[in-house]
């Protein structure tokens, strides 16, 4: 059997697969026409308001999909921005999408044009409204804040992976009196958004957003699946806490080493967390198996091209 399945290593795989199963099952369920409840997420009701106000002022809506390259977080941010863009398009409101990465720029162009076309407003679509600024963190920060100041953005949306630059954007936008809706998947940046922005999506709300906005079966279903998974985690936490509470007391004369029970040389000792069942679940210690295989005559040829 494979290395990753020995001792308690399989638990991790099982857990991940279970969660994936939950999500997939609920997506199917929802696609099957079952409509599912989603609680109110305050920050999101602000989207329309923000864009609306920008329209009144006739000043642009500025969007930043985080600092990462083409990652899932960035895609999620772009998903939310398509919603924003759609409203802006209807209000005939200028938009600016600032990309930190060429691949993101490519996807951005594709998506934004799609939005205008699907709204039948292809004539309002301006390729320059999606811009590649720079993929160097602080050059990007300088460029974007320059844009915010010069274009006098009326509404700004910062969503995705934000790092140190978050506060530069937020304060600059605040300086020109823009409404700001923000969200960072980096827990370390959320407090700064909370301090400086009008509306903030905290943590998971960012992933829930597109489901909340569109109510598409796939997304709502997946959201329900995520909740099941969280309940599973909660259950594990409660069960595990109880287990440790009862196991981690008193002395022991055997300990779990290299995948089997062994008596401790030098007599019994006081139990620690390492002696509990849950500790073994999460820290597998597979026993050392020696397997001797024939060697190649010539030195090993390095990896094959990833095709």
């Amino acid at each position, binding site marked *: 059997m494979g290395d990753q399945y020995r001792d308690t290593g399989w638990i991790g795989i099982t857990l991940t697969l279970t969660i994936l199963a939950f999500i997939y099952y609920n997506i199917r369920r929802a696609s099957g026409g079952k409509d599912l409840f989603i609680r109110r997420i305050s920050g999101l009701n602000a989207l329309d308001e923000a864009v609306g106000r920008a329209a009144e002022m006739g000043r642009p809506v500025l969007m930043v999909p985080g600092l990462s390259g083409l990652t899932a977080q960035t895609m999620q941010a772009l998903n939310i921005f398509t919603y924003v863009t759609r409203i802006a398009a209807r209000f005939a409101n200028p938009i600016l999408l600032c990309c930190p990465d060429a691949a993101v720029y490519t996807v951005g162009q594709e998506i934004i044009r799609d939005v205008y076309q699907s709204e039948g407003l292809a004539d309002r679509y301006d390729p320059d409204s999606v811009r590649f600024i720079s993929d160097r*963190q*602080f050059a990007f920060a300088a460029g974007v804040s320059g844009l915010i100041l010069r274009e006098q953005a009326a509404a700004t949306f910062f969503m995705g992976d934000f790092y*140190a630059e978050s506060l530069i954007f937020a304060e600059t936008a605040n300086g020109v009196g823009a409404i700001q809706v923000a969200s960072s998947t980096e*827990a*370390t940046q959320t407090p700064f958004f909370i301090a400086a922005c009008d509306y903030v999506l905290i943590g998971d709300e960012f992933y829930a957003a597109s489901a909340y906005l569109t109510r598409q079966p796939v997304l709502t279903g997946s959201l329900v699946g995520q909740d099941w998974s969280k309940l599973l985690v909660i259950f594990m936490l409660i069960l595990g806490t109880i287990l440790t509470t009862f196991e981690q007391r008193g002395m022991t004369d055997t300990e779990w080493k290299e995948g089997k029970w062994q008596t401790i040389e030098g007599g019994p000792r006081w139990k620690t967390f390492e002696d509990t069942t849950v500790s073994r679940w999460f*820290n597998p210690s597979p026993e050392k198996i020696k397997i001797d295989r024939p060697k190649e005559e010539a030195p090993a040829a*390095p990896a094959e091209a990833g095709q």
Partner: protein
Amino acid sequence: MKNPATFAEKLQTCPKWALYLLLITVTSLPLWVPLNVPNKPKQDAMDFYEAIWKIPEGKTVLIASDWTKSTRGESEGSFSALVRILMRRNLKFAVYSTGDPQAPEVARNVVAKVNRERRAAGEREYKRFEDWLSLPFFANSEGTTGGIGNNIRAILGNAKDAAEGQAPASVLNSPVLKDVQKVQDLGLLVNVTASKTADIIVERLYGKVPLAFMVTGVMVPETSNYYASGQIKGLVGGLKGVYDLEQLMQYGINWQGPDGKTMVKSDRNGEVPGFAVDKKFLIGNGTMYYPALHGAVTLLILAVVVGNIGMFLGRKGGK
């Protein structure tokens, strides 16, 4: 609110430029008159210091140096402190980076600086390729880190480094990596980082080699998760961490200094000697910047307090 009328409003509407000017002043002045601030090292820093001090003789330390000038304020302090301790312990080390193409060069400069210090203090200088290796930058952090876990020699094998005035040779021939066949052969892997490489390293190397991190202040909360869950042996966080470490280098832990006094006590650590009895040798960035940090943070606290007082007075006035 245009032209603030009442005192309460004045308190709440101090112009930004005035705040900024104050900030520049309080951060500049202390640099001209350095002084020694009393301090109490944090546990994670002590564990870090002990972890390095407990590395078996002759083991090699691998340093993932993922910082550049943009976080010089904190990272250079951490890195030079680390190098000072390793050199004091006569441990061989190799520096590589997956965080930023510039990291290796910045690291080289720091090592050179510490070497100059040692020359001045009349100690043995570290020879490139003999005592330490400057490995290149590897793009794709995930791939490289994972690779180091699976087969370290294959990953580092392509790299070259040159002793002073010699032609570059494969680093595998260097005494530094002589006894390192698997990643398990390393004494410790220290990540001096200002980026996500910390996560990547824990995900791919935890359990294969003891880890210790030196991170920027902003990363302390996230990385203390790893410290709390015992995935990393020790943690030096931000300027405070650097200052802690520099103090430990001075006073050790549970250790009687030359003056017979034990400055730092801890019941969670064993006795770890300090060094650098000569203070001049030890004026690192931490000791240099810490007073200015006091100025800045105090200003911040005052600003918040004043703002709130203003608000409350304003409310009273409103009633």
